[in-house]
C-alpha cells in the first residue's frame, strides 16, 4: 500500500504541522496535540471541545473556529485522545462560562473524556458532556457498546457551536447539543476497506464484487455483506434504515458524507438518489451538505445522516461558521 507519509509514527504530528501552516487563524500545539481557535478563550462564551481518533479529517480539527468548536484533540489514528489533551483543551478555552465536551460513543472516547472531565472539575472548570450516538446500523445496543457516533457529530458541533457563539449558557448549549443528537440518525456503506498507516494494508478483505452495509468510521467491517448494488439501491437501503428509526415529522438536514476515497462525482450522484428516496417517503429537506466530512482514511463509500430540525436548530445551522472544513456566511 502506497501512502503519502514519512513514517507511521509521525503521521498525526506531520498532519498537525501542515494544518498549522495552512490555517494561521488556529493555534496548533503539535507536541501536545491540541487545536484551539486563535481568539480563545472568548469572554462569556461556553467552550466547545471535541476530539477523537485521527483519520476522520476534517473531523474534528477542521471544525475548529468561530461558529463551531473552540478546540479539538486529535488522537492517534482511530484511537481516542488521552485525558491530558482534553484537559489542556478545556483549560485553553474556558472563559469561566464552562466547557462542553462533545464525545462520540466509543468505549475509548467515553472513558478518556470521563477521566478528563474529572480532572477539569478538579481545576475548577465546569464541564458538561454530550454523547453522540446516531448510527442505526448498531441494532442490539444491549449487547454492544451502544450506537456509534458518526455523521451526526458534524451537526452537533455546528449547531451547538452557533449556540455557544450566541452566548447561551452551558446548560442551554448542552441541551441543544442533546436535542441535535436525539434528532439525528446515520447509516454507512463501504465499497472498500481502509488502510491504517500502522498496518499498511487494508484492515479487512472486501472482494471487488461486494460491499459492506452498516459500517462505522474506523475501518471495521459492517454488519452485513452483499453483492455490489447501484447507487439507487444503496440510497434506498441507507435512507430506509435511517427514516425507519428517526420517523421524521419536521424537515431534515441531510449530510451525504464521503468516507474518504469516493469522488464528489459519485457523492453528488448518490445525493440525487438519496433525495429521490426521501421525496418518495415524504420527508422534507431543509438543507443539504455533500462532501467528505467524517471520513475513514482511504475507505470508499458513503454515509447518510439526517437531522430533524425545528426553527431554532435551522437558524443555528444557518449561522455563520469559519473553520478549515466548514465555512459559510462569513
Amino acid at each position, binding site marked *: 500500500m502506497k501512502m503519502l507519509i514519512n513514517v*507511521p509514527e509521525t503521521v498525526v504530528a506531520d498532519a498537525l504541522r501542515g494544518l498549522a501552516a495552512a490555517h494561521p487563524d488556529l493555534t496548533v500545539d503539535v507536541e501536545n496535540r491540541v487545536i484551539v481557535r486563535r481568539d480563545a478563550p472568548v469572554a462569556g462564551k461556553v467552550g466547545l471541545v471535541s476530539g477523537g*481518533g485521527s483519520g476522520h479529517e476534517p473531523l474534528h480539527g477542521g471544525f475548529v473556529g468561530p461558529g463551531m468548536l473552540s478546540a479539538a484533540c486529535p*488522537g*492517534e*489514528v*482511530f*484511537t*481516542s*485522545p*488521552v*485525558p*491530558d489533551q482534553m484537559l489542556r483543551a478545556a483549560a485553553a478555552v474556558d472563559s469561566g462560562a464552562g466547557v462542553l465536551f462533545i464525545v462520540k460513543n*466509543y*468505549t*475509548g472516547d467515553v*472513558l*478518556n473524556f470521563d*477521566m478528563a472531565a474529572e480532572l477539569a472539575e478538579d481545576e475548577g472548570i465546569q464541564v458538561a458532556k454530550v454523547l453522540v450516538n446516531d448510527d442505526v*446500523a*448498531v441494532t*442490539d445496543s444491549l*449487547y*454492544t*457498546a451502544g450506537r*456509534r457516533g458518526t455523521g451526526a457529530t458534524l451537526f452537533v458541533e455546528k449547531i451547538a457551536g452557533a449556540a455557544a457563539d450566541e452566548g447561551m449558557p452551558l446548560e442551554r448549549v448542552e441541551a441543544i447539543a442533546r436535542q441535535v443528537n436525539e434528532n439525528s440518525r446515520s447509516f454507512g456503506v463501504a465499497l472498500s476497506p481502509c488502510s*491504517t498507516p*500502522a*498496518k499498511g494494508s487494508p*484492515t*479487512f478483505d472486501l472482494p471487488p464484487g461486494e460491499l459492506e452495509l452498516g459500517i*462505522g468510521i*474506523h*475501518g*471495521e*467491517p459492517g*454488519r452485513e455483506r452483499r453483492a455490489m448494488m447501484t447507487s439507487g439501491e444503496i440510497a434506498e437501503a441507507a435512507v430506509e434504515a435511517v427514516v425507519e428509526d428517526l420517523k421524521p415529522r419536521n424537515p431534515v438536514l441531510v449530510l451525504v458524507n464521503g468516507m474518504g476515497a469516493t469522488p464528489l462525482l459519485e457523492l453528488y450522484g448518490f445525493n440525487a438518489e438519496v433525495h429521490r428516496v426521501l421525496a418518495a417517503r415524504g420527508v422534507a429537506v431543509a438543507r443539504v451538505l455533500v462532501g467528505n466530512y467524517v471520513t475513514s482514511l482511504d475507505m470508499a463509500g458513503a454515509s447518510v445522516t439526517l437531522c430533524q430540525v425545528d426553527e431554532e436548530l435551522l437558524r443555528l445551522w444557518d449561522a455563520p461558521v469559519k473553520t478549515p472544513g466548514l465555512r459559510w456566511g462569513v
Partner: protein
Amino acid sequence: MLDADFFRRWMTVTAESVDREAERLTALDSPIGDADHGSNLHRGFTAVTAALEKEAPGTPGGVLTLAGRQLISTVGGASGPLYGTLLRRTGKALGDAAEVSAEQLAEALRAGVDAVMTLGGAAPGDKTMIDALVPAVDALGDSFAAARTAAEEGAVATTPLQARKGRASYLGERSIGHQDPGATSAALLVAGLAEAAGE
C-alpha cells in the same frame, strides 16, 4: 516477598514482550477491531519503562501507580484507561509497603481487575481482557506460572465468543472465530509477571 525491583522487572519484561508481539496484537485487532492495539500498547509501555528509568519509585505500589498513570497519558483508546486503571488500582491497593507477599499481590490485582470491570462494564464472557485477567487472578493463589497458563487459556477461549464490548461488538456474530486482542495482551502482562518471578 516482592520488592519494588520485582515490580520494575515485571513492567520491563512486559514492555519487551509487547514490543515483540506488537505486530501480532495489531493483526488480531484487524479483523474485528481497528488494527492498532499493538502499536498503542507499544507506545504506552515504552513510556512506562522511560518513566521508571527517570524516577524509580521505592515501593511496589509506587511502581504500578506510576506505570498506570503513564498508560492513561499515552495509550488512548479504551486500552489506555483500562490498562492504566488496572495498574493504578492494583498499585493503590498495595499501599506504601516496601515489600508485599504474593498473596497481597493477588488480592491487590483482584481489586485492579474489579476496577477495570466497573470502568469498562465488561463481565467474563464478553470477549475482552477480563477473560484473561479473571482466571489469572483466580490461579494466582497457586503460582505465577499457573496464572500465566490460566491467562493464556482464557485468551484462547475468547475465540468462539461473540464480542459484547468494545469495537468488536459492532460486528455481532461476525466477531466469532477471532481471538480477542485485549485478552491476548492481558495474557502478555500476566506472563510478564511469571517471567519476573523466574517461573
